[in-house]
């Protein structure tokens, strides 16, 4: 009976939007095609296949990761780091992504010492632990927990429940804080990776300004401002400067 209903539902769904099944199958095929190209060391075609998937609007950590690998093998370090970073945003605790990202970073010519101190590094680490949705959901769980424990305290005034409520409330408040920071960072912080082999960074948005330093492929920057064809970018060590938009890609 139940089986029948689901079959009918699937049929109806197919009738309404027939290209749903088609595109899903095709996407999976395309993904596997990319993997086969990669296996036969045809990295350029693999990149094309994965990029087609992305052009369809698919946002998926696995595709980003495989694309990063293909770019790495194709010796496009900047793009590789870019897509590993994109993958990490969607799946922050994946060890493959983390390994490949840190490995490919070893090849970046610019070595930068981060100027962040211990406590801000701790906050960064915590925020990088999960995605926005994970933080949101966790906050909601603790909200729910606090509310239910609150209801229980209306009827049972035991010490242990009150303490539990205090703990849940504390976690809830801290999580709200972290979730807020995470959301505001994700929407305001724009990060980018240098994808051209070298980029000259100037003190203003034109080549007539003083050349401040030269960055190389794979360098990760934070974009703070934009003007015409230029971005104002900041490095983790505090150095800042303007660089042409074409030389970087946003994460």
């Amino acid at each position: 009976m139940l089986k029948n209903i689901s079959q009918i539902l699937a049929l109806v769904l197919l009738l309404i939007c027939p290209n749903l099944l088609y595109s899903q199958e095709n996407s999976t095929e395309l993904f596997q095609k990319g993997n086969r190209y990669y296996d036969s060391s045809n990295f350029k075609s693999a990149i094309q296949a994965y990029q087609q998937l992305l052009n369809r609007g698919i946002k998926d950590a696995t595709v980003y990761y495989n694309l990063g690998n293909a770019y790495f093998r194709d010796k496009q370090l900047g793009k590789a780091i870019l897509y590993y970073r994109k993958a990490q945003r969607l799946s922050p605790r994946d060890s493959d992504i983390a390994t490949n990202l840190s490995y490919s970073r070893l090849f970046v010519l610019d070595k930068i010492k981060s100027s962040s101190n211990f406590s801000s590094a701790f906050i960064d680490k915590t925020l990088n632990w999960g995605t926005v949705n994970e933080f949101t959901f966790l906050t909601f769980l603790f909200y729910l927990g606090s509310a239910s424990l609150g209801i229980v305290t209306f009827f049972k005034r035991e010490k242990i429940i009150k303490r539990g409520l205090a703990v849940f409330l504390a976690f809830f408040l801290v999580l709200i804080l972290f979730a807020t920071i995470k959301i505001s960072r994700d929407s305001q912080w724009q990060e980018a990776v240098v994808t051209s082999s070298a980029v000259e960074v100037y003190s203003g948005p034109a080549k007539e300004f003083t050349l401040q330093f030269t960055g190389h492929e794979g360098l990760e920057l934070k974009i703070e401002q934009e003007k015409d064809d230029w971005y104002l970018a900041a490095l983790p060590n505090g150095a800042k400067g303007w660089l042409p938009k074409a030389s970087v890609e946003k994460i």
Partner: protein
Amino acid sequence: MRHRVVFLFIAIIFLMVHIGVAQEITFSAGVDRTQVDLHEQIVLTIQVSGNVQNIPQPQLPVLKNFNVYASGRTQNFSFVNGQTSYTASFNYVLIPTSTGQLTVEAAEITLEGKTYRTNPINITVTQGASVPPTNQPQIKPPTPSKTQATAKTGEDLYLEASVDKRKAYVNEQVTLSLKFYQAVNTLRNPDYTPPALTGFWVEDLPPQKQFYDTRNQRKFAVTEIKMALFPTSAGKKTIGPATLKCLVENYKSLLNKDPFDIFDPGLLSQMRQPEEKILKSNPLEVEILPLPESNKPSNFSGTVGKFNLKASLDKKQTEVNQPLTLRVTLSGAGNIKSLNEPGLPQLADFRIYNSGTSEKISKDNYLVQGSKTFEEILLPQTAGKFKLPPIEFSYFDLSSRSYKTTKSNPLEITVLPGADLASNLPSSVNELSGGVKDINYLKTKAPKLSRGETNLYKKPWFIALQLLPLLALGFTWRYRNHLEKLQTDVSYVRNKRAAKLAQKRLEASNRLLAENNGKEFHAEIAKAISGYLGDKLNLPPASLSKEDIQRELILKKFDEQQINQVIEILNSCDFARFAPTSYERMEMESFYQKASQALIALEEKWSR
């Protein structure tokens, strides 16, 4: 207890932050003592420590009142978990040449563009008992033959100084020789004070030489000591006199006495009475020529002589962050101790730490020569094949009177990507500790390939969901209050049940109406109304008179018409109960309607 743990945690965090910051350079100077006798030695130690790659020799100020001897450099280098710390001590032996309050001026060092200075040190020099310092050569005169000992003491002893050249370049070796001529025996070892050698770097040239020499047909025993002097600056320099204090037997007093007065009691003591003689050598003038300015190489650091440079590595192959040792050896003739380290080429892919110097000095033929080896620790930062460019060292060649440069052979290093990367990288890449040599392979399992989903917090249903716990909280709170009042508040309970009870009584009266039981019907209606009012007003129904009802309802601000209606109903009920008349069914029904409407009106008014 819990507070203590929290405090400890915070303290640890602060400590860690501080450790991260504390990487400063310290530069200090100290002496082993501040009060000495003239010609005693003081050890000056200058210490540099911090995470610095190349520590040059600190610049010592010109110390006019001291003879300065460099006595070497010791260092300590540690590399633990990517943290390097480095300490270098430079030792100098200072020998004061004058008495009084002397000042050792501040030494200077320039590291990474910053200049550090030490504090000046005050030293008090007293005349003291002129005991020769232990490190000074002891002049042990050979015993001259007795027959040579004449009565004349005037030229029996003298001290003569000479140099091998009167003109020399800065930092060129000038050999000073001091000869002590003696034709008589001295009573004990003479006190020797070295000459004032301001403006020279001094190296003793052992061994002492002892020989016989004949002058003016007298045979002298000669003790010769030599010193190598390296002038530190150009100009006319004077080598001050050396002094020798010695005791000789006084023959004069013996001769002037009557030889027959042999039993003179003073004679014996006079014979033993020694005479103190102070000998001074002749001062010498030396002209020091400056080194030519023309064709002076940019990396010239003042070395004069003849040198040869060699460089070697302890291994040709290493891993990232695994140190290797580079040895640079300068060998030749000249002022070995003052040799500065040849400048290493800038190596972007290495961190360079100075780990020590060692010297080998031989003084054969009274010429200072030997070798000095500089050890550098190279820490490769990146993998790859590297060629170390040749290391160059420039010096002024004395034989050709021109500048020359000696070069090492280029060296090759192969650096493999290390397994130990993790220790030097941020902790987020701990996955590397397994020794990563390549990226990980693709993920082959096809994912669900969804379009990016919008964030949870932007979805309307999720935002609406946030209200649910709040609503639940509100409702349960009200319910809890209700339950609490039911248990504790009688008037609340009565108030809540009033309408229900009245409803039940009205139903009962309706049944009585059907049975046509007029008396009971009216009694039930009266109970419904007075019971209801009793519950609402929280008064016992038994003691509730119509006057009470009227008064209470006026207090509750019911309008007069409604109050009158209620009283009227109660009156007609009383009347019907006590009057033995029977009632028309129609009449009873309309009364029932009237009573229930009055109750509804009361309830409406109350619940508003």
